[in-house]
């Protein structure tokens, strides 16, 4: 395991929740004349050169996202930090905010300068009470130290940060649903266009960024952007905070450069698989397709490699699964989660996720039938790209890939039903009664 530069997790365990400690560790050094002498376009160019990509899951280039925000719409520009970390297996933002809240604030000041924004909202998942406490404490300190509020550091620049507590819906991690929820409406994704960059919170240009994306900014600005870009792959710069969980010896949050081989992550960082042999890995959270052990051996943790393997990098949440688990049972857990968290707008997602979950329940309960797997595959095919947001694909994708890669697990459970070969009979079908 090569020693890696720590971009986001450098202050972990050093008590950086306190502003004095954070400053001693080099914090808030960027909030200086150097930043305030740069124009907005120079800052955005700086970020673009660093090749930073969004760390929330979609991996959209951050500098490009910022450049889409209109400058002269006559409306305020809002920055919204997506801290509604709900994806199964992801827990990085929780620790980042808990351990190093000032870095988020510093990053936000840089982002606000780049976007000409007056206010930012941190939409934090409601369950993260310690995080919210830590953030609020840090905000108070930052206001007292003059990094936030009116006329920051004696300039004309004014900037406020508000922490908003979500109510615990997975879908509020989708940016337009998050904005709806922030506005006090039902957390349901909006029709697009218009995209939030043009018309987001309160119909104003809004930039929604993940916590980790914002927290990478202080490091980038205290170094050269090329230095950050160099650490990653050609198309995505920098390091990534990975959350490794599941059947590993040391589950936890690890920072590593993009492009690190998957087996290095599992064996060197997380201490190897425990309880059995490696069966599968979900490389980017619960909604991505699993990789089999053979695929894991060649996979590297970056956007391109995983996309080429028909899965996704997502939020960098690796869930390691050993061979004592039945994948059908895992899919049933996912079905339970997604059928409960669907917002209820689009028909395929609203009805389909529940139906898939009920079929999976039958299989897991030993009441499955031959043809159930084919039916699930066919049903999940009806999800693809037809809904407002990608939640339906978050279950549809895994359903297709689990059943394709681990078909034996499903068949094993279906075979437990003594009547598994019984054909489908139409309910109330009584031949000969009517004619």
């Amino acid at each position: 395991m090569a020693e890696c530069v720590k971009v986001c997790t450098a202050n972990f365990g050093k008590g950086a929740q306190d502003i004095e400690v954070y400053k001693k560790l080099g914090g808030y050094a960027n909030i200086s004349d150097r930043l305030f002498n740069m124009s907005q376009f120079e800052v955005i160019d700086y970020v673009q050169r660093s090749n930073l990509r969004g760390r929330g899951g979609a991996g959209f280039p951050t500098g490009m996202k910022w450049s889409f925000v209109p400058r002269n719409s006559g409306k305020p520009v809002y920055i919204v930090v997506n801290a509604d970390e709900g994806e199964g297996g992801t827990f990085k933002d929780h620790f980042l905010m808990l351990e190093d809240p000032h870095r988020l604030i510093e990053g936000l000041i840089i982002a606000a300068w780049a976007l000409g924004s007056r206010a930012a909202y941190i939409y934090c998942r409601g369950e993260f009470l310690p995080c919210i406490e830590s953030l609020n404490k840090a905000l108070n300190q930052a206001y007292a130290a003059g990094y936030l509020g009116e006329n920051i550091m004696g300039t004309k620049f004014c900037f406020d940060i508000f922490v908003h507590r979500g109510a615990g819906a997975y879908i509020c991690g989708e940016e337009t649903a998050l904005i709806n929820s922030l506005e006090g409406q039902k957390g349901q994704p909006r029709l697009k266009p218009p995209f939030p960059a043009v018309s987001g919170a309160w119909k104003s240009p809004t930039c929604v960024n993940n916590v980790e994306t914002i927290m990478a900014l202080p490091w980038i600005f205290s170094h050269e952007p090329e230095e950050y870009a160099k650490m990653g792959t050609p198309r995505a710069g920098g390091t990534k905070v990975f959350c490794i969980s599941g059947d590993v010896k040391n589950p936890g949050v690890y920072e590593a450069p993009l492009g690190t081989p998957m087996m290095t992550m599992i064996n060197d960082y997380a201490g190897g698989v425990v309880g059995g042999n490696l069966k599968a890995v979900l490389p980017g959270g619960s909604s991505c397709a699993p990789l089999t052990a053979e695929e894991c051996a060649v996979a590297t943790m970056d956007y391109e490699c995983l996309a080429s393997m028909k899965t996704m990098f997502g939020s960098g949440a690796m869930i390691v699964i050993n061979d004592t688990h039945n994948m059908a049972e895992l899919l049933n857990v996912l079905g339970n989660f997604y059928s409960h968290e669907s917002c209820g707008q689009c028909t395929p997602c609203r009805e389909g996720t529940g139906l898939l979950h009920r079929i999976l329940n039958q299989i897991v309960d030993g009441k499955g039938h031959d043809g159930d797997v084919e039916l699930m595959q066919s049903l999940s095919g009806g999800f693809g790209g037809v809904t407002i947001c990608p939640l339906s694909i978050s279950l549809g994708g895994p359903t297709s890939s689990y059943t394709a890669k681990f078909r034996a697990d499903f068949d094993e459970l279906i075979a437990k039903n003594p009547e598994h070969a019984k054909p489908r009979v139409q309910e109330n079908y009584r031949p000969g009664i009517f004619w």
Partner: protein
Amino acid sequence: MSNYYNMPKLPTENSPKVEIFVDDKAVMVPGDTNLLEALKAVGIETPHVCYHPFLPVSGNCRQCLVEQEGPRGRMLVIACYTPVAPGMKIYTPASSARVKNARKATQEFMLVNHPLDCPICDKAGECTLQENYMEAGQNESRMRPEYGKNYHGNPAHQFVDAKGQVRGGKHVDLGPRVLLDEERCVQCDRCVRFMRTIAGSEQLQLAGRADHTYITTFPGEKLDHEYDLCVTDVCPVGAMTAKYFRFQKRVWLLSHTPTVSMDDSLGANIWLDHADGRIYRVMPRCNPEVNRSWLSNTSRLAFQNFDKNRLPAMDVHTPAFGSGKVALVAGGTCTMEDLAAIRMLKDSLGDRAEIFGGSLLKVGTPDGIAMSGDPVANRAGMKLMGFADVADFMKRASEFETLVTVNADLFGEDPAASSVLEKINCRVALTPFDDATAKKATIAIGVRHWSEVQGTMVNSLNILQKLNACPVCPDEKLEPAFQVLSKFAGCKLQSAVEAFKKVGEYASALAGLTYDTIKSTGKLLEGGEA
């Protein structure tokens, strides 16, 4: 979310035409609308559930999918939210198996948790789901009973049926006029959007999420609004039902007469749905210029009194109009034909007759939906025909010796006026109802109600609209008011067509028009504003 829900732009006659490619064929469509309306304009119907032309787009049913050629290849998009762009390439099920399958899949999902109780559902026969199923679905069910259903509904209303299945709430009382069948709801959001954007009173809301979403009012609140019965119209399935029509008649047994509501001077366009010689319900008839698809409860429920308290037909001779001054007063529900006949009567009586029109009721303000607030439906028509306001008559009532009221219940409208009116010796009332004026009249003559006559009216927007006769007249011997009046004038008009010719003679704005030249949505008269 109303700010983010956008009203669809509907094509008009003046829409610029642009060329798009549908299934690789070039067609000219209206350029300023959405794809769904554009395809409709060239005769391609797209199945849809949540889209309604007069409600903001919410795009949640995903039934109107089409394929669009884009920079990243062919993408499935919803036709209701895709604006028409020149040169765009669209693929419908006619050429694309992917679209066909996607629609079929959506259809299947839509029916997963929907009860198949069409035989006892009031909406059967005019249900969007049924129509879509015949068009896009027609699939053999792939479900097993073991998979179960998760019927939509409020947990408080759920019950377990004889088979042990948990069912959603049935006949949930939403308010004084509307019942909700929770398990039939397909979460299209139309009623919520109607109450939010059109009625302007957010009384309905979708609660919960995923397949346990259900429609509800706020706790302890009722759905009670002047337009609340419109939610039963916009409901694409049988979830929202009107109490007055529930289980009254299968809709395919109803005949429909297109006509105009004479309760209000906006003249909301309506269908009179009738069978067995009676009206069963009144439905709004779409007219983008007038009432769009909306109808107030007042206009909708008025039909319940159409056949009550009626005057019988009687064969009357021309009454003696004496030698003094005669006041001819037309009420608000007089058609243009009635007004022409009153003019004929005035001409026959000479200078001693004067004509007045209107009512003694107060004039309200337009509500911006489907009511102008003016109870005199044909006020604009009266102006065209040279009628003075009835207020003039009330000031000078003592001058007159004879009063002829046509559909005008002056005694009923203002009881205080009766002392003045009773001083007039000869009071002739032509009215469908045995109302206060008929009771006080020296001669009361029964005539047909406006729902039973053919005719025309001019609404407050100066649009000439057609009324059609609904065959529900309680007594076939009853004659329309214009026939009785023209008989008094000595020249009986045999038909409405003949009467309408007379209208053209008296009102130059209507000269040369015939019934055939008036469209079903009416004809804007010159000098009016659209």
